[in-house]
C-alpha cells in the first residue's frame, strides 16, 4: 500500500476543511451556526472516538460517556481549583481519561461482547453516581458551577467567542485527523484483524488483550478531548455528561452516520444535533421522538446515512469491499 499518498490526501482534506470552517464566521455572523459547529466538534470527536471501539475494534461500549464527563470534570476542576493554564488543564484532563480507561479497560476488554457493553455502562454509571454524591468537589446535581476561568494563553483568549470557535475547530479537525491516521496505521489494521478474527491474530503473535486495551485507552483519551471542548463551550460540567443517555446518543450517532466510513460518526453527530435542537423546540417528549427514530434506523434501514451514500458511489463501495477481503 502506498501510505505516503494516502496520508497526503488526508492532510489536504483536513487543511481544506479547516480553511472552510475558519472562513465561515467571515461569511455569516450567525451565532447559532458557530455554536453548532463548536458542539459538532465536541460530539464529532466523541462519536468518532467511540467508533474506534465499535467500528474498528468490534467492542460495543455503552459507557463511553464516562470519558466525556470525566474529561469535562477533570478539566473544569483543574481550572477552578488548581488554577492551572488551559493547555496544562487540557493535558491533565486527557491524562485523567487515559488513567480511567486503563483501569476500566484492564477489567473490561477481556470480557465477552455483551458483558463488555454492560460492564462499561456500569462503570459509567458509577462515575455518574460519584459525581452526584461528591457534592463538595463536583457540586452534585447542579454541576460544576461558577464558570470555568479562561485565562489567556499564547495570545489565545477563549472567553472571546471567535477565539473559542477557531480553537474548537482546530482541536476538532486535528483530533479527527489523528484518529484517521491511527486507524490507517499498522495499529489500526491490527485492531481490525482482532475484531474479525481474534484467534487468528493470536496465532500471528498479536497480543489481543493489549491491542484492545490500547484501543480502549485511545478512545478514552479522545473522549476526554471532546469533554474538554464541551466544558469550555458550556463553561461548566454537568452530571448529564456521564449519564447513560449520552453514551446511547453517541452509539446512535455512529449508526445514524454509518459504520463503514471514517467520517460517518461525525455525519451522525451533525444530524443528531440538528434533530435534538428541532425536537426540543417543539416538544418536551424528546425521548419518545428519539426512540422512534432509533427504532426506524436500527430495525428499518439497518444502516446509516453514510452507508447509503457509499451505495450511491459504487467506486468507493468497491474499494471498501476489497479492503474487507484483505483485512
Amino acid at each position, binding site marked *: 500500500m502506498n501510505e505516503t499518498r494516502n496520508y497526503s490526501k488526508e492532510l489536504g482534506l483536513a487543511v481544506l476543511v479547516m480553511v472552510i470552517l475558519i472562513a465561515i464566521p467571515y461569511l455569516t455572523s450567525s451565532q447559532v451556526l458557530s455554536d453548532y459547529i463548536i458542539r459538532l466538534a465536541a460530539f464529532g470527536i466523541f462519536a468518532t472516538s467511540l467508533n474506534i471501539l*465499535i467500528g474498528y475494534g468490534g467492542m*460495543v461500549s*455503552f459507557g463511553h460517556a464516562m470519558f466525556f464527563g470525566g474529561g469535562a470534570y477533570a478539566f473544569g476542576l483543574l481550572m477552578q481549583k488548581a488554577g492551572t493554564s488551559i493547555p496544562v488543564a487540557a493535558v491533565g484532563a486527557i491524562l485523567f481519561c487515559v488513567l480511567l480507561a486503563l483501569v476500566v479497560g484492564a*477489567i473490561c476488554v477481556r*470480557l*465477552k*461482547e*455483551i*458483558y463488555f*457493553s*454492560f*460492564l462499561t*455502562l*456500569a*462503570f459509567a*454509571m*458509577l462515575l455518574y*453516581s*460519584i459525581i452526584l*454524591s*461528591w457534592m463538595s468537589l463536583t457540586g452534585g446535581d447542579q454541576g460544576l458551577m461558577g464558570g470555568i476561568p479562561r485565562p489567556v494563553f499564547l495570545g489565545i483568549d477563549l472567553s472571546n467567542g471567535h477565539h473559542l470557535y477557531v480553537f474548537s475547530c482546530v482541536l476538532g479537525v486535528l483530533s479527527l485527523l489523528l484518529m484517521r491516521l491511527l486507524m490507517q496505521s499498522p495499529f489500526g489494521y491490527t485492531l481490525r484483524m482482532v475484531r474479525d478474527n481474534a484467534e487468528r491474530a493470536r496465532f500471528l503473535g498479536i497480543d489481543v488483550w493489549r491491542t484492545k486495551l490500547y484501543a480502549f485507552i485511545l478512545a478514552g483519551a479522545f473522549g476526554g478531548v471532546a469533554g474538554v471542548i464541551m466544558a469550555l463551550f458550556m463553561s461548566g460540567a454537568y452530571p448529564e455528561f456521564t449519564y*447513560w*443517555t449520552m453514551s*446511547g446518543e453517541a*452509539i*446512535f450517532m455512529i*449508526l445514524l452516520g454509518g*459504520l463503514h466510513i471514517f467520517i460517518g460518526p461525525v455525519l451522525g453527530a451533525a444530524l443528531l444535533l440538528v434533530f435534538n435542537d428541532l425536537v426540543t423546540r417543539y416538544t418536551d*417528549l*424528546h*425521548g*419518545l421522538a*428519539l*426512540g*422512534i427514530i*432509533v*427504532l426506524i*434506523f*436500527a*430495525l428499518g434501514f*439497518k444502516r446509516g446515512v453514510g452507508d447509503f451514500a457509499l451505495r450511491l458511489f459504487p467506486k468507493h463501495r468497491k474499494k471498501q469491499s476489497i479492503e474487507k477481503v484483505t483485512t
Partner: protein
Amino acid sequence: MNPQELFECVTSLSCIVTQTSTGLIVGALLFLVAAGLTLIFGVLGVINFAHGSLYMLGAYIGLTAYHTTGSYLLAVVGAGVGVALFSVVFERLFMRRVYNADVLMQLLVCYAFILILDDVVKLVWGAEFRSMGMPPAFQVPPLFIGGGIVPVFYLVLMGAASLIALALWYVLKHTRTGKVVRAAAHNPVMTSALGINTHLIYAGVFACGGMLAGIAGALAGPVRSMSPGMGFSILIESFIVTVIGGMGSVSGALVGALLIGMIRSFGSIGFPDFVEGLMFLAMGLILVLRPGGLMGRSH
C-alpha cells in the same frame, strides 16, 4: 464514612435485625428483577437492557390497578400480567429481529425502548414522583424482634419473593416445561429439530422475565416512590447481581441479590456515600476471582 457506627450496629441485636430485614427486602426485589434478566440471557442469549423499564412499567400499572380496584393483590397480579403481555409484544415485534444481529443493534433497540417507555410513563402518569402508599391491610404496628423493628409489609414482601423463587425453581427443575426451556437454552437448533416450537419458548421466557420485573415493580410500590427513569438504577443493580451470581443462573441471582441487599443495608450505615462503590467492589472481586460468577458456568 464511619466504620465506628457499623461496628456498633453489628454488636447490637436490634440493629442487626432492622438492617437484615431491610437488606432482605432490597434483596427480594432485586432477585425478582435479576432473575428475569438472567433467565432471558440464559435462554435467548441477549441482555435485555430495557429490563429496568419493565420494572418501572410494573410499578405504574400496579399504581393504577391499585387506585381503581383498591385491592393490592389485584394490583400485583395486574402488574405481572400487564408487563408480561407487553414483553411478548416487545419480543415478537422488536427483539426477535435482532437476535442474530450484532450487539450494537440489540443495544440500540433496548436504548430506544428505554427512552420511549420513560416518556410514555411521563405522558400517562406525569413526570413528578408518585407513591402508592401503604395498603390499609398492612397498616398495622410493626413487629419487634429482638428489639429491632420489622414492618409487617416487609414479611409479606419476603414471603411473596420466596414463593416466586420456589415456583421458579420447581418449574425449571421438575417439570417438562422447565426441561424444554433448559434444552432450548442449551441447544436451540436441536430443540427445534425435535419438533419443539422454540419461538414460543422465547416469547414465553421473555414474558416470564417481564412478569417477574412487573411483579417486583408493584411489590415495591408501597415502600418506594416512583418516577420516570426509575428503572435504570435497578437495571444496573440487577446486572451487578447477575455478574456476582453468574449470568444465566437463577439460583446465582438469588445469592447475588441477597448479598447486594445486605451490602446496601449494612453499607449505608458504615459508608453512606460509598454504597454504590461497595457494590462495584463486590462485583470487581467476583470478576477477578471467579469470572463466571458464584453459581455460573465458566465462560
